[in-house]
């Protein structure tokens, strides 16, 4: 076996409730800004997408019309990442670029669903009723706007990323695995350059219903993620994050400027029926990272119980680590939470500082020195967990 190749993060694209682009996010994090809408879906709350002009990255209105909001968010963020890596329009590289997208699905046509349910409740729904309504009321293009792999499809069409295209599904773990596989392929020489990321539209009532089935929604009053002890729950957030990952040789050959190195991504699936299984799994994952600078950790902790308490138990084993929970500032963005953490880690490494704590409980502490390594952690709200190590380039 030859030595694994180094993988650099050379492009970052990010849009969220806090704005668009790296500078806006750095400023918002340093100002401890939180954009939460407690009225629109009350008693539930959401971190809504900041205003964005999609034309800037998706110039054709026809393309925008073919997409649901989550696809527009993702295609936009992918464009930002390619811009940031200096690759926009570089057909030679885009034509052989590998892509792994972590995706859920698109929004249902809720008024159509409600009208159908109303007929069932009134007893007006005969055996053929559902077929008739769906045949007449579903927009033909809605299917493609909902289909998981069509975020990647739209990125290929709009930006020309057309080497390979894979879509991973499975909530939070999907994007951890996307990063893990992309890194493994680059390290082993199976890939030179990859675009990875995810997008989430949190402003969806159909998602609120789905998560309410499991009592996962935060209700009534917003609290920072570490202060939700009793009630638990997450506030959904809208965000799109994409990263360009490439081998050091490839980046150097084209003169690309790296933000940071992605050194390790590890993941597992704890059997959560056993209390403490997640804490133990995180311990094992941590030991695989080879952390030398036990200084900083960015987690996508959901705030959901009991798993957030298991995360806290793990964090207590690493006292002095400067922890940052992205859930407070961004809400929970499912598949997007892990690439968001990696993006903020790479940004912090490139800035030579970790952004400040935003936590009244004291779990998050200041980091006064320059971090050389930042661990990124993702623990799914119901299954899956993983970590990444983001490092300064030597």
């Amino acid at each position, binding site marked *: *076996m030859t030595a694994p190749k180094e993988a650099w993060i050379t492009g970052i694209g990010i849009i969220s409730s806090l704005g668009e682009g790296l500078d806006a996010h750095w400023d918002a994090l340093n100002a401890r800004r939180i954009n939460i809408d407690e009225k629109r879906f009350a008693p539930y709350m959401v971190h809504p997408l900041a205003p964005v002009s999609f034309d800037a990255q998706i110039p054709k209105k026809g393309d925008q019309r073919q997409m649901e909001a989550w696809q527009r968010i993702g295609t936009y963020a992918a464009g930002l990442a390619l811009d940031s890596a200096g690759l926009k329009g570089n057909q030679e590289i885009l034509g052989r670029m590998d892509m792994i997208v972590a995706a*859920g*699905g698109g929004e249902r046509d*809720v008024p159509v669903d*409600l009208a159908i*349910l109303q007929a*069932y*409740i*009134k007893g007006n729904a005969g*055996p*053929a009723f*559902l*077929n*008739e309504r*769906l*045949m007449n009321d*579903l*927009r*033909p293009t809605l299917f*493609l706007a*909902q*289909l*998981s*792999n*069509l975020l*990647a*499809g*739209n990125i*290929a*069409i709009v930006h020309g*990323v*057309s080497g*390979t*295209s*894979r879509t*991973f*599904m*499975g*909530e939070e*773990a999907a994007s*951890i695995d996307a990063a893990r596989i992309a890194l*493994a392929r680059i390290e*082993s020489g199976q890939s030179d350059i990859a675009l990875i990321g995810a997008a989430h539209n949190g402003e969806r*009532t*159909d998602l609120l*219903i*789905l*998560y*309410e*089935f*499991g*009592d996962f*929604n935060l209700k009534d009053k917003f609290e920072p993620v570490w202060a939700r002890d009793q009630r638990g729950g997450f506030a959904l957030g809208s965000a799109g994050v994409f990263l360009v990952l490439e081998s050091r040789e490839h980046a150097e050959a084209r003169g690309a400027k790296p933000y940071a190195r992605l050194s390790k991504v590890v993941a597992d*699936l704890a*059997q959560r029926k056993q209390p403490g299984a997640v804490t133990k799994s995180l311990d094992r994952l941590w030991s695989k990272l080879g952390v030398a600078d036990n200084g900083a950790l960015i987690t996508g902790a959901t705030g959901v119980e009991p798993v957030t308490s298991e995360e806290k138990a793990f964090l207590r084993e690493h006292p002095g680590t400067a922890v940052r929970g992205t859930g407070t500032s961004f809400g929970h963005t499912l598949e997007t939470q892990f690439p968001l953490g990696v993006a903020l880690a790479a940004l912090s490494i490139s800035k030579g500082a970790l952004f400040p704590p935003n936590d009244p409980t004291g779990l998050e502490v200041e980091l006064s020195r320059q971090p050389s390594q930042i661990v990124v952690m993702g623990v*799914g709200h*119901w*299954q*899956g967990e*993983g970590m990444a190590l983001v490092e300064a380039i030597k």
Partner: protein
Amino acid sequence: MTAPRDTFGRPIVVVTGMGIVTSLGAGKSDNWKKLTAGESGIRTVTRFPIDGLRSTMAGTVDFVTVDPPSSTALTERLADMATEEALEQAGIGSRGDFPGPLFLAVAPVEVEWPQRIEVGLAVGKSDLGVEDVLRISGGGKYAAYHHRFMFGSVAGHLAEKFGTKGSPISLSTACASGATAIQLGVEAIRRGETDAALCVATDGSVNPEAVIRFSLLSALSTQNIPPQGASKPFSKNRDGFVMAEGAGTLVLESYQAAVARGATILGVVAGCGELTDSFHRTRSSPDGKPIIGCVNKTLVDAGMTPEQIDHINAHGTATPENDKMEYLGISAVFGERAKQIPVSSNKSMIGHTISAAGAVEAIISLLTLEHQRIPPTINYDVPDPAIPFDVVPNKARDARVTAVMSNSFGFGGQNASLILTREPV
């Protein structure tokens, strides 16, 4: 003894276990018998009312039922069945302890109509709004529906049941998903991360809304009567694909590990390739370049030339577009041989098993290698003169087959191909 590495120095990846479920039946033996007899598994749908549908037939797996019924639960059950068969054959690891990762091709998941209606009826007021549904959704009564309708639910179940290692990967590359699952397994073994991988592809999603969604895209055949005649790959009167269900599981191992434990080697995954088409959401680039590139990448990955391929297990969906483009792509790479090489579409008999198709058809390709017999393309009565493939019309054919190319193309510009051989090349 063959070297454990291929000409590129990578570990050779072999198949040591296979399991299959289609509308024709459960298991390799039943499926192979019916496929080579030219039997169709397509029938008029009885699972739900077909009133008002433009397409009323499908390759449903009606001999498997799940309670409470949902497409995701059926998808999971089909995967269980195929995986049990594959593990039984491979004899690897021990029960509930598979020594490698899981790569699962599975359809996207969402809450389905029976459950949506159940919750709606529980609201009990006819002018209901979202807030009414939300008010009764919590409290644990419907907690099982959260788990059931998470995208990672089938993979989570399989990982626990079969004891695969690490984080299981659920993936979708639309109709190429099954091939992508195999490709991910091959890559992991070639990287030396693992000696074994469990590659599963499953689809049990024939439900009213799924049929209607494809129907609204004009993708489905509407030749409902007789249902067995609907799927007509490469025929002039083809008019769309037929939705179908099924599952396929392959146990992949490094050649070295398989030999070391004395496993029977069923075949070799000699090459994998994929290339994205960025032309359109549902249509191929008219110049066929992405398909041509995908096929060429696969040949390069296998270190083979077109002359070494002696059978193509086609994507062959029977949509006017796919079959035309597949011929264009194959003929560009294979030249005059495109007219001589036997090209068969299993979808003529089992329909399009969507997320499962790439793995189901890879398994049929491996069975073709094992039995030296090519399953036919049935319903081939009106050849399309624009597609002069030798489609192995209507009757199975004995043939010397050493290397099969299996193609999968999907919405969203997904193209993936595999090359399967009997022996290491």
